[in-house]
């Protein structure tokens, strides 16, 4: 089973794009388990460990708003830890606690703003279909190897 961990806070503008993409991926009927938490927590490591592959979906900054980027992920040896963990930290916990190393990617949707109470920006809303396609492209398909 593929786990889609689509996280973010829908009350903080474009930070809500992860859960929105997650819900719409589930609605496609794709054979995936979709989880849409506000943030990543150590508890998610157990779900990651039980998955055949993991696709994180999150908002990002640093590129033009609406740009969709897919990056392959690995467990990171040293990760700064506060309350919310990074995808790499979750993979590290899955490795150290459950000896699990599922292949993992993150689909990033670059954001315009994180304004409290604001809806998704027009650029990010328009990017959602591309983000969904990016997730679906990572699912197991006959004669297809997801990008690493």
């Amino acid at each position, binding site marked *: 089973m593929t786990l889609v961990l689509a996280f973010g806070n829908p009350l903080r503008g474009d930070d809500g794009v992860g859960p929105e993409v997650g819900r719409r991926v589930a609605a496609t009927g794709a054979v995936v388990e979709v989880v849409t938490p*506000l943030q990543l927590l*150590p508890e998610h*490591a*157990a779900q990651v460990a039980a998955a055949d592959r993991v696709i994180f979906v999150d908002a990002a900054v640093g590129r033009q708003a609406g740009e969709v980027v897919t990056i392959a992920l690995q467990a990171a040896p040293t990760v*700064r830890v*506060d309350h919310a963990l990074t995808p790499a930290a979750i993979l590290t916990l899955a490795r*150290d*606690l459950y000896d699990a190393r599922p292949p993992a990617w993150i689909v990033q949707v670059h954001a315009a703003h994180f304004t409290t109470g604001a809806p998704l920006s027009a650029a990010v809303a328009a990017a959602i279909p591309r983000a969904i396609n990016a997730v679906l492209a990572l699912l197991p398909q006959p004669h297809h190897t997801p990008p690493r």
Partner: protein
Amino acid sequence: MKAETMAQTITIEPVSRVEGHAKITIHLGPDGQVQDARFHVLEFRGFEKFCEGRHFQEMPAITSRVCGICPVSHMLASADAGDRLLAVEIPDTALRLRRVVNLAQIVQSHALSFFYLSSPDLLLGYDAPPAARNVLGLAAAHPEIARRGIRLRQFGQTAIELIAGKRIHASWAIAGGVNASLSAAARDQILAALPEAIETARLTLDWFRASLPSHDEEARTFGHFPTLFMGMVTPDGSLESYGGRLRIIDAHGRLVADQLDAAQARVLLGERVEPWSYLKSPFLKALGPDEGAYRVGPLARLNVAQRCGTPLADEEFARFRSLSAGPVLGSFHYHYARLIEILFGLERIGELLDDPSCLSTDVLARASRNRLRGIGMSEAPRGTLFHDYTVDEDGLLTSVDLLIATGQNNLAMNRAVTQIAKAYLHADRLDEGLLNRVEAGIRAFDPCLSCSTHAAGTMPLVVEVHDVNGATIGRIDRRA
């Protein structure tokens, strides 16, 4: 992290692995020795003000947004205040289920505090590199403890979700009761998970108790001083977390006040505001801010109670109380008390759900507003939480006062930081050892600054040392 020791103050900022954002300043006297230390809370959100004008029935859902760690505590204190505005007694099943949810909240929050935030200090040592002294370092060095801690927290969160509908920000408890009864399937799922959770709590207690001699120094220096203690008890003096009455004792264990309802307790408490922090400093008015300083939370609750009231927790309670002839004064033992409360919470959840009445659908008393003021309370993981509402005849709030557990520990936290700084600060150098111990001392209280200032965000720490003239002579910044 960076340390500067150019001229004259000590600041720890941000304090990491606590909930919110804070700074600590350490003030030296003319002799260069530590004279005072202050725990500053720098965030402010103003929940009390922007709730004015809202209807009191909305408040459980609104105030659960104060915090992502203890939303249940706010929801339940708010619903209790609402019950009092309605002037109703809620159905027995509603009270039973509110108690279960509050205990599940205590279990999950204590598990987070102990396993995710504090056990890296205890297991990896205060001098371990900060990059390793966290839950990832714990997972690498002690995977079985980390696995069990994660499962224990999951138990509490799952129980909350099964009963209240959501893990965080549920809108389940309302004035008059709760808006959904419990299904048999949900009850059975919770009960089935209890044995593993209890086993984890017992194993962790066995390990922690065995490790206590190695923490003797911390037990003596991490906030070991006399204060008052306040916590909720049952009518017979057993530990309670919701729907009980408050007891206050002094540092010798003598009763100061007993069986107070929220309104009676609130009258006894004053609040001091300091210009250097958004965190108010409550105290017992009759004794003033110095003698009237009190502690709340797990340590206080186990000090005021005569017993837990469940078999396994009572065995451990007896060992805990044997640490001291009177109340246990060392704030380091908040950790020990937290673990005992986890065990108690799990046992009590089992008792409450074993009774068939927990499945009754009679869970809501219906009434209109009958009073203009209602003060509710719950024992949040970090201590007693008060919600004090005044409304107009239409039920619209004209004033809101949230008295938060972390705030009630503010005076004690400042004393603890001062004590730690006196024990570990060498004025000529600011080192990791000092920073780590100051942080760990604060962390023993498990402060939640999101709640206590009603602020958003997470909390990293800065420590500054100031000389007698107020000049900064050293600074460590955990954010850098």
